[in-house]
């Protein structure tokens, strides 16, 4: 009887089963309703943004919505009685569903994030050609990692749904899968539903979880496979059942392969994680051997083999199918290591980045860094005292040190903010676990020492406030940036806020009238849309074509070298400034002499060029065809 009760209700201690079920129902139900209200408040803020309202009241409403979304989860996980197994899992999944809804509500009718257009292009090419590994001028490496395209293609062709609907379903499922798989990993490692729920909640406040890692992008699907692969690896580390030796290997291999085929960085992270775990487990077993301790099978060899299989798959895919990945990642890696070298040799870097934005966002950023920095230390303490027998817990604790490395590199390297954000997607897995242990430890202290229930609750509120502050910092550092946190306000060459009907129209016109694969120079928004909807071979790094009032010899030489056939001119770049700390063009590294806004004469000069055609005009957007025959480099 006791086992039955424990299997259903988990940690609750009230005597009557029926009362426990009723209490659980009301707690879970109320939490779910409050979370749904949070989503509604955010939707109201978004609607206000689309209606032209802006300013502090609706931005404040957005933040209130986020607190309502996360608050019940944090409260239930930190309060003294704690959640049951079902409640903790339900809260985690509810949070994942709610955060995905927030992302969906930002752009509910069409793709709105620039990266989504890149993957739309690859998927459309697959649907048209019926074969993988096509060409995508906008994101050339994307066809070499066709996992997302395959899944979307399968859903589109079997159901008849449009790509947008299929993409939203797949991204949503991947988001939920990531949360579920991380919960399973944390639950099995920690042995506590509360700790697992807290770890997942802390993971959910990482800067990219709510939006960027939930878009229709290949990393979204790959993260789900990463989580599942970790679950499979955790199971593989246990001694196998006699009748079931092969199947765990097949399961793990399939999930590793799916990750490798879907996203480059995620597969490298998976390989590195498995190598790290194998080393940890091996070192732990070796240490116990030397002490003459019980030589239980810790799975070191199996994890090592799985790590080897992963590395082998990564290498094969990289060598045979996706060698372009090296060229794609090389510039980022070069900047990263150059910045790292400058940091280590204490040389000044002229391109390190510091956080920008409104004062509350900056304060939240810095507070987050301090809280995580201190929280990781507290988490280490608790893990060492209570879980040093569990190798995975130790591995999480050690991996969390990566946060300090990322903090330094964020400030010292070019593109530091972007690299930090992308890295935190993975680092928040061990950080979430370590911080959760710290919160569990601090909560236990507060309950033991609290002389009054009210004091205990106050301390719970304090602990919850820490998590909410992490949430603020995560959103402030995340996506979308603060200047387009509410949708609807057009910002020329903004990321999501720059997508507009006129640019979409010219892209679709180009696809249908000009045909595909023309070399086109354009500003950022038109670059994205012409490269995706327009199916054009859009050109980067030709910003200077727009910098002078006359078409110079250098401009002609640049156009010739890059085989530019068409130049897109968006007259709105002469009327409006680009986003803060950004430029008008895809390379995002405007020359110091780049005018802001761009003078109208700079844009219309192409019409004075002998032999140039003005083939398209929609009022704000003009398409010029440059004279002469251009050959690709």
């Amino acid at each position, binding site marked *: 009887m006791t086992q039955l009760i424990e299997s259903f209700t988990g940690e609750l201690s009230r005597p009557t089963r029926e009362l426990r079920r009723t209490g659980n129902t009301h707690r879970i139900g109320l939490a779910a309703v409050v979370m749904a209200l949070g989503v509604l408040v*955010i939707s109201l803020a978004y609607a206000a943004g*689309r209606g032209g309202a802006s300013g502090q009241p609706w931005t404040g409403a957005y933040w209130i919505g986020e607190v309502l979304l996360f608050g019940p989860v944090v409260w239930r996980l930190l309060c003294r009685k704690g959640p049951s197994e079902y409640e903790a899992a339900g809260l985690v999944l509810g949070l994942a569903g709610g955060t995905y*809804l927030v992302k969906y509500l930002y752009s509910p009718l069409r793709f709105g994030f620039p990266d989504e257009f890149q993957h739309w292009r690859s998927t459309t090419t697959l649907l048209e050609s019926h074969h993988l590994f096509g060409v995508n001028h906008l994101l050339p490496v994307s066809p070499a990692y066709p996992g997302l395209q395959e899944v979307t293609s399968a859903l589109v062709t079997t159901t008849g749904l449009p790509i947008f609907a299929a993409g939203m379903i797949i991204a949503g499922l991947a988001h939920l899968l990531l949360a579920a798989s991380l919960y399973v990993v944390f639950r099995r490692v920690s042995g506590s539903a509360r700790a697992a729920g807290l770890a997942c909640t802390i993971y959910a406040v990482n800067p990219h979880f709510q939006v960027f890692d939930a878009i229709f992008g290949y990393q979204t699907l790959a993260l789900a496979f990463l989580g*599942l692969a970790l679950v499979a690896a955790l199971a593989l580390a246990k001694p196998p059942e006699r*009748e079931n030796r092969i*199947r765990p290997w097949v399961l793990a291999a399939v999930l590793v392969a799916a990750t490798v085929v879907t996203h480059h960085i995620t597969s490298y992270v998976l390989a590195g994680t498995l190598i790290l775990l194998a080393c940890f487990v091996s070192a732990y077993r070796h240490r116990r051997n030397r002490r003459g301790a019980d030589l239980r099978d810790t799975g070191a060899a199996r994890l090592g083999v799985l790590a080897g299989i992963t590395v082998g798959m990564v290498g094969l895919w990289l060598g045979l199918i996706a060698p372009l990945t090296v060229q794609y990642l090389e510039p980022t890696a070069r900047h990263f290591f150059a910045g790292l070298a400058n940091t280590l040799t204490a040389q000044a870097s002229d391109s390190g980045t510091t956080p920008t934005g409104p004062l509350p966002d900056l304060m939240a950023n810095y507070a987050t860094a301090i809280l995580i920095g201190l929280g990781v230390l507290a988490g280490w303490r608790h893990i060492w005292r209570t879980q040093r027998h569990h190798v995975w817990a130790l591995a999480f604790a050690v991996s969390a040190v990566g946060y300090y490395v990322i903090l330094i590199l964020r400030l010292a390297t070019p593109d530091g903010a972007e690299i930090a954000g992308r890295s935190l997607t993975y680092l928040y897995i061990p950080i979430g676990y370590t911080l959760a242990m710290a919160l569990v430890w601090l909560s236990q202290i507060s309950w033991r020492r609290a002389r009054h229930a009210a004091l205990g609750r106050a301390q719970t509120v304090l602990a919850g406030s820490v998590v909410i502050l992490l949430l603020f910092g995560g959103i402030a550092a995340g996506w979308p940036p603060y200047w387009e946190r509410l949708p609807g306000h057009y910002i020329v060459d903004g990321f999501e806020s720059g997508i507009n009907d006129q640019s979409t129209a010219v892209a679709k016109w180009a696809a249908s009238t000009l045909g595909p694969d023309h070399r086109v120079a354009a500003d950022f928004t038109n670059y994205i849309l012409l490269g995706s909807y327009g199916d054009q071979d859009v050109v980067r790094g030709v910003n200077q074509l727009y910098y002078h009032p006359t078409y110079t010899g250098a401009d002609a030489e640049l156009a010739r070298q890059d085989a530019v056939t068409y130049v897109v001119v968006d007259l709105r770049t002469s009327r409006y400034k680009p986003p803060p700390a950004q430029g008008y063009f895809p390379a995002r590294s405007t020359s110091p002499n780049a005018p802001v806004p761009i003078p109208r004469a700079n844009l219309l000069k192409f019409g004075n060029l002998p032999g140039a055609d003005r083939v398209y005009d929609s009022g704000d957007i003009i398409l010029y065809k440059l004279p002469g025959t251009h050959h690709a480099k």
Partner: protein
Amino acid sequence: MRNDSVRPTVSRDLVITAGITVLCAGLVALAHTVAGQSPVWTVIAILAGLPLALVLPGHALTMLLLPRRTEPARIPPLLLQGMWTVGLSLAAMVMCGLLLNLIPVGLTSTSWTVGLAVLTLGALAGTGAARVRESVKRGARRPAVSAPTGVRTVSARSAELPAARRRPTLAAACYGIAVLVVAGTAVGLAHSSAAGQPNSHFAQLWLVPGKADPASAGQATLGVRNDYPESGHFHVTLRRGTAVAATWDLTLQTGQTWHTTVPSARGNTLKATLTGPGPGARSQVVVLNPDTP
């Protein structure tokens, strides 16, 4: 827990899953061949295609690869089952797509439908064979598996609870409805506000040379598309050099396109001007220079 009545239970889930797979695949195939624009078949394709792609392959693979598990961590079985079902469905599609890419027809609706169905049925066959093998090994003394899927370990215990206590309570149902209503309101509000966003008011004008084929040599295409939110009157003037070669007065509905073929420049600049609806509408201009082929 062992008796002969378990043997039909062991295979019944495989048969049911196989039957549903064949049904879904058949409906999807029928929908794509028969449907046309029929809304009924569109709905049928969605209702059959979603489980065929997102549920059945993963469910079958879960039965094959995770046949029997003890779950010391007491993770809810529904969470595990759902996670593996959907996760393995997605992974299976990734692997299946790589194989389909090797066949000449590639990744089409037919090949996906057949491929996913074959994958699912193959996994089910493998599960059945594995169960038979295990039951032979154990001398058929015990059921091959204690439950159709390994995740039933805990829910098998739950099955001992009186059925009435496992039904959702009225309170749970009310909370569920409240959540759906609130979330649905949020989604509806987002849709309506996004659909009602102020539109750009513009029209497209273009003048492009003919394609490089003999039939259209010496020709150019002049086109206008109305992207204003309402119908409008447009005036187009075509000049060859300084002389007016042609004019058009157009009334276009929103989203409507007009185009015509005109002789190319032949030594003179070809210039078209569009004047749109409304007072103060700015003229739009396109130009083909005389040397453009």
